[in-house]
């Protein structure tokens, strides 16, 4: 069963308290972030129903929102998710080569997860780091000025953490 810890529930309440009386639905987007972090990096229907019940809204209102925003994972993902930007400014600085390199290095296609469940590769649209291109997001961190050597380092560091 999905359920936040007591501490997390306090955090939930403080999120809801940011809004005027009766406007608790506004906390939906931050709450989904919290749930995604807490319940395995993705949002199952069960998780979404639980978030809906915390806010007193219908499940469909949660699904509508969760499927709209690109940061929510609706399927399980690897432990480390590489979200490489490939919009104009990053493309000008060689993001295509970085994506190709990661693909070969991890032997997966875009959108796939490695067999060991460690890495997922995604391409994403502009993340607001155009001056530090090419770049990718990993969890809440940005990895900027990517080169093949830097990608190697990142992958090695992730593997070492195991």
């Amino acid at each position, binding site marked *: 069963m999905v359920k936040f810890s007591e501490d997390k529930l306090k955090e939930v309440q403080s999120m809801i308290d940011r809004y005027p009386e009766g406007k608790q639905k506004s906390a939906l987007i931050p709450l989904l*972030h919290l749930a995604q972090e807490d319940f395995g990096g993705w949002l199952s229907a069960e998780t979404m129903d639980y978030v809906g019940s915390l806010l007193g809204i219908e499940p469909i209102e949660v699904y*509508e929102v969760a499927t*709209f925003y690109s940061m*929510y994972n609706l399927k399980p993902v690897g432990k480390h998710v590489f979200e490489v930007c490939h919009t104009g*400014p990053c493309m*000008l600085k060689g993001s295509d080569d970085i994506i190709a390199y990661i693909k070969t290095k991890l032997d997966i296609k875009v959108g796939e997860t490695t067999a060991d469940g460690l890495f997922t590769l995604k391409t994403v649209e502009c993340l607001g780091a155009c001056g530090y291109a090419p770049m990718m997001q990993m969890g809440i961190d940005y990895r900027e000025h990517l080169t093949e050597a830097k990608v190697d380092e990142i992958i090695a560091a992730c593997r070492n953490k195991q």
Partner: protein
Amino acid sequence: MATKLLLAKAHVEGIRHFEVYRREGGYAAVEKALKMEPAAIVEEVKKSGLRGRGGAGFPSGMKWSFLAKPEGVPRYLVCNADESEPGTFKDRYLMEFLPHLLIEGLIVSSFALGSNRTYIYIRGEYAWIVGILEQAIAEAKQNGFLGKNILGSGFDCEIYVQRGAGAYICGEETALIESLEGKRGNPRIKPPFPAIKGLWDCPTVVNNVETLAAVVPILNMGGEEYAKIGVGRSTGTKLISACGNINKPGVYEIEMTLSVEEFIYSDEYCGGIPNGKRLKACIPGGSSVPILPANLLLKTAKGETRLMNYESLSDGGFATGSMLGSGGFIVLDEDQCVVKNTLTLARFYRHESCGQCSPCREGTGWMEKILTKIENGKGAISDIDLLWDIQRKIEGNTICPLGDAAAWPVAAAIRHFRDEFEWHVNNPELCQTQNYGLAHYADPIHVPA
């Protein structure tokens, strides 16, 4: 050195912290504002000639004066920190390095507009900045600049940070409001405008981060003094985030009297094009604004020097000009392919369309498919004309400006680089291994290798 009103203190050690920021003269604008009438602050902003720094360039003082003030209904100020326009990363820089400047601007603006609950809506990917801002808010509160009865003025104000979750469209103010209400980021059909019916149906002002930060120097120096900086209706300073093929990408604060040429080639700013390459084209105001070939970028069609400001960059209209937009300055060197670049932007807009209205939902995907075809050497000349017709039928016919934003880059690319598109069609194999190069858009400036 050019005047720096926003970033002057960006490199002061520890400026992220309240004590340092305060020691450097921070929060003086709040002290000054709380002794003024709210209407007088609005008046100062009007006098300053400040224009919205998010992209549209609408006069901020005028926007503020539209705010309805019905009895007994709360009013809200919302800070738009959803910075998502490709090429734009100036708000991120400002929030990351000078969080207190934004908080100070927000307190002054909240007081001017009568907002007791003010929200910063920040794009979800800027997750680490949320912590920086919340820290700054907590420090301001500890020191009596936020919370109940600020500095004994009787004015109460709380600032909350709301994180988005990945949607460019939430930078559109009504989509942002919907998202803040915990809904899908579908832009609302206007009218009513947020100034009348915004957040939770209450009167609301939505302003960009840089706009709200600029309120601080305006209050400190007075609207009239602020208006003396810059030229014409481009007053004050502007943050430009420069990226692409330049030696020194980054965020620069400029006076709007600076020439585009100096901005690109001077060592104080972009530092020229790397590897001795030549300038091919530039998207001067974020990905939505028209791309300009080098020859139209540095000089207007009339042969005048083009400056980094609202009027000069739009000189010549869309036929030979562009826009200052959000200040996302994207430079393309001679090795870049305009078709490929346009394709990635078309893909971006297709990905970010909310899907509510038909021209944008269907048109953006159609343009992306045709551009993919041309890029892969499978296009026909008729595809270029079709592309032109599609963008024409999207532009102006959608609920929100995303339709225009998707149409303009395609239109401008065809307008100025049609020969490159035709070359792709006529050289289906060659275009897979080689780029078209500069053609007759050569940069008139000689740059030593």
